[in-house]
């Protein structure tokens, strides 16, 4: 599979799918904003200016100011860095570990499969948010632990998914053909089965990325992981929640809206990604 044909195919898919293009652009903008936040943010995210507290959105402050007079728009930009970084690391970790474990279990079957299946069942017995809470509490209230907790609670999904997908393909003709052509079991799993289940898992990854962002924001909303005055979408919503009942909606609006849009972009992008990776779509 040469790179050029992949790009060409990608172009074809994108042309036929305007929604994916918009999502891709959105995601790119988001990542760019996160990367370049220190240069494009109009104000210092933690500089407080109490005289300007609780101002609704205006020309000077596009998203208004919060209770300490900090510019919300700048805080949102800086918060993107943390949320995206946490989500991306968590998902990558759980995907890699989960896919490998799940593929081997699905291929080998037998006692190993059953044992891992049991452990996965136990893990999934925890309402996962609760488990994340407990883990962050146990390991300490730090950002790295949110990543670990999120990765851990994501793991069972990938293991189960990979296991199921490999199970379906394990007895297909070309797997046997690969063995007849001289591949060992390990080689078959790593070089043939894993790449073949990638398209199916690509959709999982995208949904998980969005979910991981929501998870990280949720954990900080309840006070775990990230602490004030660090800007983070969840914390910003938590701080703004107090003011909703008195009608000051903008403290929640900007971070909430950005949260929604970023998750939306990644979800939609994931669908487009699946179309590109699936060679059956190539003509």
């Amino acid at each position, binding site marked *: 599979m040469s790179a050029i044909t992949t790009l060409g195919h990608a172009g074809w898919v994108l042309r036929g799918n305007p929604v994916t293009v918009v999502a891709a652009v959105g995601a790119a903008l988001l990542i760019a904003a996160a990367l370049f936040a220190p240069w494009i943010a109009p104000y210092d995210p933690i500089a407080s200016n109490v005289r300007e507290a609780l101002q609704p959105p205006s020309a000077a402050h596009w998203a208004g100011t919060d209770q300490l007079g900090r510019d919300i728009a700048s805080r949102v930009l800086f918060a993107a860095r943390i949320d995206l970084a946490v989500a991306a690391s968590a998902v990558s970790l759980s995907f890699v570990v989960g896919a490998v474990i799940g593929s081997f279990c699905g291929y080998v079957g037998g006692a190993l499969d059953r044992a891992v299946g*049991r*452990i996965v*069942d*136990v893990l*999934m*017995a*925890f*309402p*996962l*948010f*609760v*488990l994340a*809470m*407990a*883990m962050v*509490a*146990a*390991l*300490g209230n730090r950002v790295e632990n949110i990543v670990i907790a999120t990765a851990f609670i994501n793991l069972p999904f990938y293991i189960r998914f990979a296991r199921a997908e490999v199970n379906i393909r394990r007895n297909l003709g070309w797997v046997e053909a690969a063995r007849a052509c001289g591949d060992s079991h390990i080689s078959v799993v790593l070089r043939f089965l894993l790449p073949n289940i990638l398209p199916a898992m690509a959709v999982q990854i995208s*949904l998980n990325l*969005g979910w991981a962002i*929501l998870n990280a*924001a*949720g954990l900080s*909303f*309840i*006070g*775990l992981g990230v602490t004030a005055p660090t800007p983070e979408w*969840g914390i910003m*919503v*938590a701080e*703004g*929640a107090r003011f*909703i*009942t*008195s*009608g000051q*909606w903008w403290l*929640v609006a900007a971070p*909430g809206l950005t*949260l*929604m*849009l970023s*998750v*939306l972009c990644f*979800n*939609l992008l994931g669908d487009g990604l699946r179309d590109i990776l699936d060679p059956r779509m190539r003509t």
Partner: protein
Amino acid sequence: MRLLGNIGRRTGQRLLSSVPALLGVVVLTFMLMRVLPGDPAVFFASGPSAGQEEIDNLRREMGLDRPIPEQLARYLLDIARGNLGRSLTTGQSVLTDLRQRLPASLELTLSALVIALGLALPLGIAAALRPNSIVDHAVRFVCTVGVCVPTFVSGLLLIYVFYYLLGMAPDPTGRIDIFAANPPDITGFLLVDFLIAGDMEGFQAAASQLVLPAFTMALFVLAPLARMTRASMLAVLGSDFIRTARSLGLSRRRVILTYALRNALLPVITITGIVFSTMLGANVLVEKVFSWPGVASYALDALLASDYAPVQGFVLLMASIFVMVNLAVDILYGIADPRASMS
């Protein structure tokens, strides 16, 4: 008869296999608590000002000077006896606290589930019956967007619209107006208790407090439920046996209700179990936003105050509830799908 026998056997098997799951959960919480920084004896003591002697006594009492396997055994024994420790913040035993606050959480979660199913199923079915119509597109749009909205944001949004702007909803704090009287405590579920007591005014007050948080939680799971219903219904409608049913001239009603819907609902049953588990987690967020006095906010407050016994109890409780709900879902599925009961 044969079918009932199979179902019974399957139920027994499932019960048996949930025992290791529960056991695993218990062991996991045990390990989690031992990982905590610091000395558990200090945490479980009567207060921060406890003297060294008391702490030493407590340590011996808790068996912290014994080898780990023995600690685990004592822990299991404690759990079996219902001794979950004592809460620093409330001063009561954790078991009592949980028992007091559980009905609030359950009432919230169950009403949310009912609302979610009541909305998601018809929407999903309608979308599947009219593919590529406006209804279909609308449902797909709602699902796509719905998955992206965090619970706490939607809750706050609902508060802003219905409380602040429209004034329709009451003050979003707690289950019931602080000036109103509580009903006699029979089940702990306010709605049920008010009904039993015949107090319609109180029932209305409690219901109006419940509406916003229940809807917030329902919105959270609406998207995956509707999406799954729609996908499942579409898949079933395109299957071979529906084609056979149509070719035999069965009425449209029978084809859709008896043949299509019953088959399409099977995966929905499974996903309801998964959805319930996410709701138990979402409980934490919703209870925080609406100051709902349930077990989740109890555990959260304890956690932030470094009071760990309630957190441990809460985790155990949630996991047990989930295992039981999953068991119920499994049994229900076994009844609905005869293929599952056979071997």
